[in-house]
């Protein structure tokens, strides 16, 4: 009997909790306090600080803090301070959804930045859209993210643009005729590999093999042994730093001697360069951070970030930093209410940012900027080229 009683009691409690939670939420919606001109402006932020992408989560969180510090040091937004509201999403879409709800309905942010991967950002985007709060995805590149409406922007290249740029590097700059592809099997690797393939095949090059692997793969000897037999001119590897470093190391050990072309995923100073060590020399990547840029914004960012974090910044950090800079620019020029911020972002033209000159955003919210080509030389990313051909870098607007 006592068993039954305790159970009934608890069930009633839980049911009540659910109902209260449901109703409480409906009445509790908060709109950002626009009237108060002295209160700090809140900007929401989420990143995978824990979980399998914690390394990126760490980089972008540092960048976000640096950006807010910088904005405030430069006088804030017309005298108002900016405040960062940052959460960890553990790389789980379900958490990203509740974070997005919390940011938009509880915390009163006027805009948000996603420092997370595609599936989390993808899950959160519609919530910002519905709440009419602008959100910029720093480096998530799932094509659907920006398709929901006007309020969602992307600060990195959409996958198709970077894939094309990779193809350009492969066939137009490096003159490769036969290519093997090794891509990480998620939206990132797949989107890049697909548009890369499309581009190189249109230029008459041949993709001789395509293999995919999970984010946690470490053992590439079997597949590299196979590729060695095919003797391609180039290996294209859209992947992340952990896997990319292993491919670099194992290719060197197997004495592959094939030029490798990576993507922004391996643009990581900590994980990629240190783990792959000297074996990475000569690898070329497409990215959006040009370390040798003459732009003051870029050099300031690199200097400030290195001073703060104790190591050189990577691409995800630079992209995240720029999201905040773009938001600040928009707010300074157009006002700090969500709608005005959104409109302001669409108006941005030729804005100097850490990741280069931002030419503007199209109607989907996709950024247009030059693709940077970097080569690893003496254990550092250095300038190799820059792609500014509009046919390649212009993002699709559908």
């Amino acid at each position, binding site marked *: 009997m006592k068993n039954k009683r305790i159970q009934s009691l608890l069930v009633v409690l839980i049911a009540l909790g659910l109902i209260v939670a449901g109703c409480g939420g409906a009445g509790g919606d908060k709109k950002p306090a626009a009237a108060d001109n002295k209160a700090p402006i809140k900007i929401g932020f989420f990143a995978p600080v824990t979980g399998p992408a914690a390394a990126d989560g760490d980089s972008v969180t540092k960048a976000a803090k640096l950006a807010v510090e910088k904005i405030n040091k430069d006088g804030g937004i017309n005298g108002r301070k900016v405040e960062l509201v940052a959460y960890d999403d553990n790389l789980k879409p379900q958490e990203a959804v509740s974070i997005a709800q919390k940011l938009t309905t509880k915390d009163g942010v006027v805009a948000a930045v996603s420092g997370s991967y595609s599936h989390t950002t993808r899950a959160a985007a519609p919530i910002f859209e519905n709440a009419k709060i602008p959100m910029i995805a720093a480096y998530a590149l799932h094509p659907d993210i920006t398709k929901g409406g006007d309020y969602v922007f992307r600060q990195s290249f959409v996958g198709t643009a970077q894939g094309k740029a990779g193809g350009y590097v492969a066939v137009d700059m490096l003159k490769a005729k036969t290519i093997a592809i090794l891509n990480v099997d998620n939206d990132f690797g797949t989107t890049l590999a697909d548009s890369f393939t499309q581009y190189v095949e249109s230029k008459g090059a041949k993709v001789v093999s395509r293999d995919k692997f*999970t984010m946690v793969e470490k053992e590439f000897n079997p597949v590299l*042994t196979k590729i060695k037999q095919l003797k391609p001119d180039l290996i294209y590897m859209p992947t992340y730093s952990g896997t990319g470093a292993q491919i670099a190391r194992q290719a060197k050990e197997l004495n592959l001697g094939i030029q490798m072309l990576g993507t922004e995923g391996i643009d990581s100073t900590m994980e990629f360069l240190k783990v792959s060590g000297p074996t990475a020399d000569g690898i070329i990547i497409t990215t959006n951070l040009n370390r040798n840029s003459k732009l003051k914004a870029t050099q300031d960012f690199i200097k400030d970030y290195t001073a703060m974090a104790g190591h050189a910044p990577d691409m995800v950090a630079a992209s995240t930093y720029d999201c905040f800079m773009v938001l600040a620019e928009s707010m300074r020029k157009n006002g700090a209410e969500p709608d005005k911020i959104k409109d302001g972002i669409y108006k941005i033209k030729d804005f100097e940012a850490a990741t280069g000159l931002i030419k503007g955003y199209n109607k989907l919210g996709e950024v247009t900027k030059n693709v940077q080509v970097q080569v690893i030389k003496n254990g550092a990313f250095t300038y190799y080229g820059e792609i500014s051909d509009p046919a390649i870098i212009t993002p699709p607007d559908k």
Partner: protein
Amino acid sequence: MFFQQIVNGIVVGSVYALTAMGATLVYGIMRILDISNAGAYALGAYISFFFLLQTGNPLVAVVMGVALTAVFGFIVQKFLYAPLMDKSPNVALIAGIGLFIFLQDFLRLVGGPQARELNFGAMLPSVRLPGLGLTLYGTWFLILGATAVLLLVLWYLLNRSTVGLAWRATAQDLETAKAMGINTNRVVAFNFILGYGFAAVAGILVGILYNSIYPMMGDVPAYKMLAVIVLGGLGNPLGTVLAALVIGMAETLIGGYVGFFLPRDAIAFVVLILILLWRPQGLLGRRRVS
């Protein structure tokens, strides 16, 4: 290419054998699927990394990594698992998972989330045998050599030494072993010291092989080692070695010839499921007679 793939498979298999051995030993006596062993794998590598940074002496680093992880194993046994022995196996399983999550995040907080290089001096030079189309990594000799030596030592320890005799008796029938005068508390403690020490060795060696350690490095071993020890027949060290080689070879050959039509982990589990359909007691398991 064929020889190269065979060698690749053996290396992968050896890494699995090494990784799964700690959990096999623990299962042998405690009959629990000890997920936290994969946490010890990462812990060992990190401790070793720490001492390498502090002292610059690889030997000190390895010894401290293994020794401190073994001590950790002792503590885990005494304060976590021992009191849970008479509870449902789910309890020990979830406790182990909790500890594993805790350790991973502890390492992330202390060591940073990025992968760190575990670089014991210069890269060992590769050996090339063009006649056979073979390349042998310098680190492979280290891995294969260490695996072989450790497995031989383990084999000797279990089958030829007095502690090993006590271990085998306890694994078979703890109660009778007690009545025969064997201090089974000590055997169980020794078992965990050995099992966690093994995990640390595996973590360090894999860290060297891939020149990288990171807080989540135990994630894949956490389930891969379960596939290996179950396929081997649960708690049977020899079975574990065999199963590790079978899975390593299957993954390598399928990956190398057919392409990765499935992720490696899925390949490992497909192999496991197919073999269990044929032999529900695993490769070297003995069917329990009622």
